């Protein structure tokens, strides 16, 4: 009798297994909306490195003295359904170690300042916004760079998104500074190590700005052209100044690979 019950139990289990398979349901995101930073808005399929745009730099160097403020934009995205009304979001500043941090009001316009707080909203039917960070030109920026750490803060409209995408950093100055496009790849394959002296030389001999936008828009063949152009130009400069070859601010001879 026991063995009969055992066999029936086994059969039932097999039958249950056989008929229990069915397609899994799709689960929709029904939780409270979340918020995180992301890459610039571009056509679908465009791929980006994970940490692209996490650090941006800006400089007043290229502007005339009348320009006292500038705006740097980051991109922020919601997770969840779009809403039919404006959704405010909240950013907070965090201290970056080892650098001089910008001071709200003095070096940048605080995110909760009455003049700008309404800018930090996700518009109706949208899942994306450009985050303005308004920086101020102060005399001290002629001699140093300041940094600003920004983090998403949970509020009544949004919970936090992925932990690795909750922050952004901004570095700004009034001096010539390394454009974001002059990254490690560009240093290794195009322009060599960055130095302010080399950057200034490139601007001087071409008459172009060589800021981030300019460098970002260079095609591959333009990059090849300018690399060779600078190599030739530097050879001629050093031939004309045999006792004073071009060196960077660290005393190292400048080269373009």
């Amino acid at each position, binding site marked *: 009798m026991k063995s009969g019950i055992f066999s029936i139990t086994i059969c039932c289990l097999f039958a249950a297994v056989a008929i229990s398979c069915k397609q899994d349901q799709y689960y929709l995101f029904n939780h409270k909306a979340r918020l995180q930073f992301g890459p610039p808005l571009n056509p679908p399929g465009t791929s980006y490195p994970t940490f692209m745009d996490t650090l941006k730099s800006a400089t007043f160097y290229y502007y005339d003295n009348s320009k006292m403020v500038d705006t740097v934009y980051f991109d922020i995205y919601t997770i969840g359904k779009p809403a039919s009304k404006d959704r405010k979001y909240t950013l907070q500043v965090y201290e970056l170690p080892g650098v001089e941090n910008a001071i709200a009001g003095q070096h940048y316009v605080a995110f909760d300042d009455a003049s700008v707080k309404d800018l930090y909203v996700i518009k109706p039917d949208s899942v994306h916004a450009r985050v303005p960070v308004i920086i101020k030109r102060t005399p001290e920026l002629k001699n140093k760079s300041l940094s600003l750490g920004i983090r998403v803060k949970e509020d009544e409209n949004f919970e936090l998104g992925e932990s690795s995408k909750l922050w952004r950093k901004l570095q700004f100055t009034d001096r010539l500074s390394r454009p974001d496009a002059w990254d490690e790849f560009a240093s290794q394959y195009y322009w060599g190590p960055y130095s302010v002296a080399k950057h200034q030389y490139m601007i001087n001999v071409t008459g172009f700005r060589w800021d981030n936008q300019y460098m970002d828009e260079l095609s591959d*063949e333009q990059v090849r052209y300018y690399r060779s152009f600078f190599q030739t130009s530097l050879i001629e400069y050093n031939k004309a100044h045999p006792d004073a070859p071009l060196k960077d601010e660290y005393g190292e001879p400048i080269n373009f690979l």
Partner: protein
Amino acid sequence: MKHLHIPAISLLLLVLACTKDKSNYDYSEKENIEIKGVLDNYSVITLKDTLRINPELTSNKDTDMEYRWGLYKGQVGVMDTISYTKNLSHPVKESAGNYILVFYTRNKKTGVIKTKQSGLSVNTRFTRGWYIAKDDGADSDLDLFLTPNNILAEEKLENIYSTVNGSKLAGNITNLSFLSAYYTYDNGPLERTRTLMVSTDKDINAIGIGRLNLIRNKQTLFLGDIPEMGAPNAVILGSSAYYGLAKGQLYSISTNSLNSGLFGSKTRRNSSNADYSLSLFNSSSDATNPVFFDNTSSTFVTLVNAGSTLTEFSDAAGTKMPARNNNKQVLFMALKYIEYQPAPKYSFISKGYGVLQDKTNPSLKILSYLEQDESSLKITNDTIQPSSKLFNATQYALLYEDENMLYFSTDNQIYSRNLNNGFEQLQYAVPAGEEVTFIRHHTYTSEAAYAFNFVIVGTRKNDQYIIRMFKKSSGNLESTPYQVLQGKGIARGLLYIAPSVREDTYPNSF
């Protein structure tokens, strides 16, 4: 126990064995639609021809057919529907190029579809014929001799460049070459464009074959500043680059990577950016490093992978003359043939010839056999005796991948020199009063009806040119030319252009 296992397993198998029946129980005969009367390939001339095709359709079913004709440019992309009727009558307005013509038909009663694809070569009047690059001592133009049926010219379109574009090209012709994979935006998107490169001593002009329009010239052909122009200006095909020569300075477009057809920065002679002046004459191919000669330093140089600095050739074992600082200048140089080296090299080497003159002793001239392997060069010299006809030659043509002979003109007579034994022979006595302006050896084998292997001699008589095309027999010219082309001006070069001509069809464009 056993009695229970059998029904349990049977029950399990029954549960698992049930699947939905998706079998096809339609046993009627399959519909078979046949399309006849549509060829595999068509060739038309745009803005002139109407493409007419009357297909015949048969089916073993009752039919209520619908039709569609469409064109694809290239292998991919969106089909451009040109007709919904069974019989096609399409006035061709498409730009020159190769298309895929698709005939699509569907039986609306059964849903069965049948298609037929054909190749469609859209040409212009300019896409086939003999192009003559000529000047009048001040400005340049092109004549085009049309060849609708075979290689014999039937109609001349004189000064066709200026007729189409409204003005002549500035300067006198220095070189004529053809690129079939040159990138331009001429038709909108960046794409390969079949382009004539007409170089004068004042400009380098990229002229699209399709419409014979000026695509670029010195104003737009270079990244950065406009180079100084002056002979020798030329565009030369290389293995990984197109080379632009502007007053002896070298510029390049890397064809190994995406480019928009613009020449880059001037190539440096060496790490100290020394002065140099390259000869127009070279031994370059689409599979090997080019052999250039710097007349300033008397050094054979090459450019590896469209780099930014010229590389001096090293001396290969057994060479009879150093490749560097040999105190010579080049009077002529050309490619003879290329040869594939199997494992372990897996690369091509090139063989060429040059005629060199000593700078210190101009009466010393040598005929040099140049064996190039990557960046090394083996030079074997044969001194040209002052008594030989070659010593005073002014125009040259090396037979490419053919008899081992060099053609040349001395005192306006056409001679050959056997490169194996030095034997020289008068090949053609140019009529009195004519001056030889060029000699070429061109071979074309892609189309049987148009195939040729000619030694071509261009002469000038007053303000007229005469171009004689000779067939060869065992390397010697036939007594009378196969074809003679004549026109106004001084002809400096020519190319036969056809849809099947590629940029490597005529390696030596001088």
